[in-house]
């Protein structure tokens, strides 16, 4: 193992805001000469503006330097290990980016004639087939823009199916370990939330489920493996109970990186689920987005899928069908975040069935390796076996030196790593949620483990160093309280 520490020093330049480096008279644009008579702006009268006050004026090289300098203040998957639990920060393959930018792919218009869109539709069709095979489901929509919109689509599908049976019901059951988008989604879909407490193993408590699963419950929204990384071993009993009482089982598929090629939600009773292409299928997170959240369903829910639905005409041509009498309607403009679909398909093709399975195994192996090598210095939140992520608690460190998960996370930055997910899931107090993904080599894992072990020692010997970390970044801890009390959300001249 290397003895060179991961973090080193390097020049980092300061850079002002665009508006502060702007000067009147500079330009980074040149338009082709106008080959038609100039516009009659005067005819617009009051409908025209005379100026865009404050808008910057810059040259091309300044723009290049501006955004290059800013970029050096970021940490990406390309920089190093990015073990954010629940986020699946895996490698974003370059060939994905290449094919997504091919002219007739990036330049395709969403409303161009069907006969001139067969290539795009073929990409969507093949991706649909692969995703259905991976999930073990019957039908799919690629329309949702992200996981949360996938959730909303799924719950609206359930609402429509129940409505068709005569009663949309009133409640959605959500475990206390769930991600915040789950309850937020159910509320937007017009449901009240009933919280399902987890048991001592961190999984669904069957007795509570039995009590809460009434004829007023439309769905149970379950994440499997759950946000602790634990596979719900009672999944079949859970599904049976929900179905017997006339409800649907929704699965938040954020954690599919633990299952691809090893287990299929459709085989264990899930009725509807979303995938996050920006997690499991390697499309880049882009500093917060875009993502893509396809929703796969069992046959019963197929008639309700959002429009348009990808189908085949009798002559074999692919088409986006709008005429769907039972559809919940459209979730957004056009047919989906196509550019993300292209990338996800390229990823699946590159891996193939063999690579996908190996990927899952490596992701689970990496997380369990970290768990094994750290559990003597950090307390595990739950003892239950975990899959692609593991959750520790700051219990020991908090007790010893009042050092908390947020402090340890910040100190990791000084060691050259991106922090893990802090304080989530809510049921694990002081959570340190680690998801290394398959993209970490053993060498990197060892360095990361060594860093976390060193920090555990610092908690004993110099806790202040940890509590005031990071010490090596271009800015230190920000005063978020002052920022929230007097929000300054845009630049102004003063």
């Amino acid at each position, binding site marked *: 193992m290397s003895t060179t520490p991961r973090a080193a020093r390097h020049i980092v330049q300061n850079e002002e805001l665009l508006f502060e480096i702007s000067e009147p008279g500079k330009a980074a644009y040149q338009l082709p000469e106008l080959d038609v008579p100039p516009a009659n702006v005067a005819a617009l009268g009051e409908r025209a503006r005379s100026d865009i006050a404050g808008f910057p004026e810059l040259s091309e090289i300044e723009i290049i330097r501006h955004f290059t300098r800013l970029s050096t203040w970021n940490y990406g998957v*390309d920089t190093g290990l990015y073990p954010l639990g629940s986020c699946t920060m895996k490698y974003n393959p370059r060939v994905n980016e290449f094919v997504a930018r091919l002219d007739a792919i990036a*330049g395709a218009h969403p409303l161009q004639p069907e006969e001139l869109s067969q290539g795009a539709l073929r990409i969507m069709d093949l991706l649909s087939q692969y995703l259905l095979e991976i999930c073990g489901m019957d039908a799919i929509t690629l329309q949702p823009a992200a996981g949360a919109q996938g959730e909303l689509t799924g719950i609206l599908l359930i609402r429509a199916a129940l409505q068709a049976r005569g009663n949309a019901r009133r409640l959605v059951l959500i475990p206390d370990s769930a991600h915040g988008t789950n309850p937020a989604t159910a509320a937007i879909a017009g449901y009240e939330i009933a919280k399902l407490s987890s048991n001592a193993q961190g999984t669904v408590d069957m007795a509570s489920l039995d009590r809460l699963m009434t004829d007023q419950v439309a769905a149970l929204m379950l994440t499997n493996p759950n946000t602790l990384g634990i596979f719900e071993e009672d999944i079949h009993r859970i599904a049976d109970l929900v179905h017997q009482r006339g409800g649907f089982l929704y699965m938040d598929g954020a954690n599919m990186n633990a299952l691809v090629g090893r*287990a299929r939600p459709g085989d264990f009773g899930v009725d509807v689920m979303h995938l996050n292409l920006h997690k499991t299928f390697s499309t880049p997170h882009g500093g917060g987005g875009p993502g893509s959240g396809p929703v796969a369903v069992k046959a019963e829910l197929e008639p309700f899928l959002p429009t348009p639905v990808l189908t085949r005409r009798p002559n074999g041509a692919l088409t986006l069908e709008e005429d769907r009498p039972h559809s919940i309607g459209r979730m957004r403009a056009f047919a989906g*975040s196509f550019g993300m679909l292209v990338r996800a398909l390229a990823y*699946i093709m590159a891996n193939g069935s063999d690579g996908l399975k190996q990927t899952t195994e490596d992701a689970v192996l990496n997380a369990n390796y970290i768990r094994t090598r750290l559990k003597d210095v950090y307390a595990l939140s739950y003892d239950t076996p975990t899959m692609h992520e593991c959750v520790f608690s700051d219990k020991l460190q908090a007790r010893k030196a009042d050092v908390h998960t947020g402090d340890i996370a910040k100190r990791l*930055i000084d060691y050259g790593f991106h922090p893990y997910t802090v304080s989530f899931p809510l049921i694990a107090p002081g959570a340190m949620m680690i998801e290394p993904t398959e993209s970490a080599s053993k060498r990197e894992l060892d360095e990361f483990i060594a860093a976390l072990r060193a920090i555990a020692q610092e908690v004993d010997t110099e806790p202040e160093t940890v509590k005031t970390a990071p010490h090596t970044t271009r800015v230190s801890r920000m005063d978020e309280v002052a*920022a929230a009390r007097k929000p300054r959300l845009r630049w102004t001249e003063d």
Partner: protein
Amino acid sequence: MRYLPKSDPVRQRMLREIGIENVDELFAHIPEYCRLTRALDIPTGRSEPEIIDFFRHCAALNAAGYTSFLGAGSYYHYRPSLIDNLISRGEWFTAYTPYQPEISQGTLQAVFEFQTLVCQLTAMDVANASMYDGSTAMTEAVLMAIRVTGKSDILVARSVHPHYRETLVTNTHHRGFPVTEIPFQPDGQIDGSRLEQAITSNTAAVVVQSPNFFGSIEDWKTLAHLAHSKNALLIAVITDPVSLGLLAPPAEADIVAMEIQGFGIPTSFGGPYAGVIASKERYLRSLPGRLAGEARDSEGRRGFVLTLSTREQHIRREKATSNICTNQALCALMATIFMSVYGRRGLRELAQQNLAKASYAAGEFQRQGMEVLFPAPRFHEFVVRLPRTAAGYQPRLTQHHMIGGLPLHRYYPELGETALFCVTEAVSRARIDEMVQLYSGQSQPSLNESALAGARQE
């Protein structure tokens, strides 16, 4: 597998350190009936050249190298080369949401700049970091207006993009928020007197797009006056931000919901794009989506953080202003770079060129004796009445490597055989002339041309 940084011997070593022999043991707690015991029915892994071949083949089945006159919410503006170059830096596109400000200052500052640019452009006080697209931005703006006003009736102009209206209905009908459409006048603008009749003290929001779906420019002042007279909010919808280079911003509106694809984001068959919501300061607490704010670090240095997060799902859960989590950050970055390139003068010049090209094209149709509907002032889109079914023109256009206007019959049956044309700075006069000729029937297919078309198909 080339993306996996491990050899089999290393895997074995790691398994031994965990204290197990076989990777299957890591999956042992998955009940047997849940396990997939066969290989997925997906071909085995392929090489990079094979993947590229496949997508090139697909690309060839799409329109490639065509001149397009489509707009309708997705616009062809030239994308400066530095956009893709800059966003291809891994520090931009492989980073997560900037929850750790110390190592995310690049993203955070760029978001702060984006918010500022959007405010300058729209004459609003605050703007969020992005929504999924224009249609969901509009829908969320409506839900925001319902929260702010405590009322529930929604009036939406029929000249708002049909997909946006459908999205709104999907998201509101199950909650019992009534949506009423307000018709347009023969001049293309919203029918003000019908709006005046429809608006009541229960109206939460009046939703109007400008330039509207037909390209016509609406009058924000009058609309705001009408909405405010009944304590309703005016929501301004904008589908091409380039229009704001020239057109008066909706300063009188309360909320602006905008699609920013036109600012350097590829048309990409419909996405990913990005929406944004901007509003007056007083509605800040009801705004959905992320916000970057200025902050100081412990040594007084300026930096930026995500702020006012208590509005969001990860804190307020079922009481959040929205369920949005992942947004469209990289698309917003493309737009920020685009705005930096064109800047204060360039955006105006760009918008003027769009206006010039579109009015030239509309004029050419009229010169050929064809009817251009809706005489109210327009930006870069217009509607033409056609003597034959709109789709019937496409085969000939295809021979000329052109995609014509969008047939409107499906969206507005009341307009009969019409098509919506968009002409941006990216189309040359020669191609405009050629297209108008093909529609006006001035150039009958010659023998040569038919032969050429036949040859192409072989």
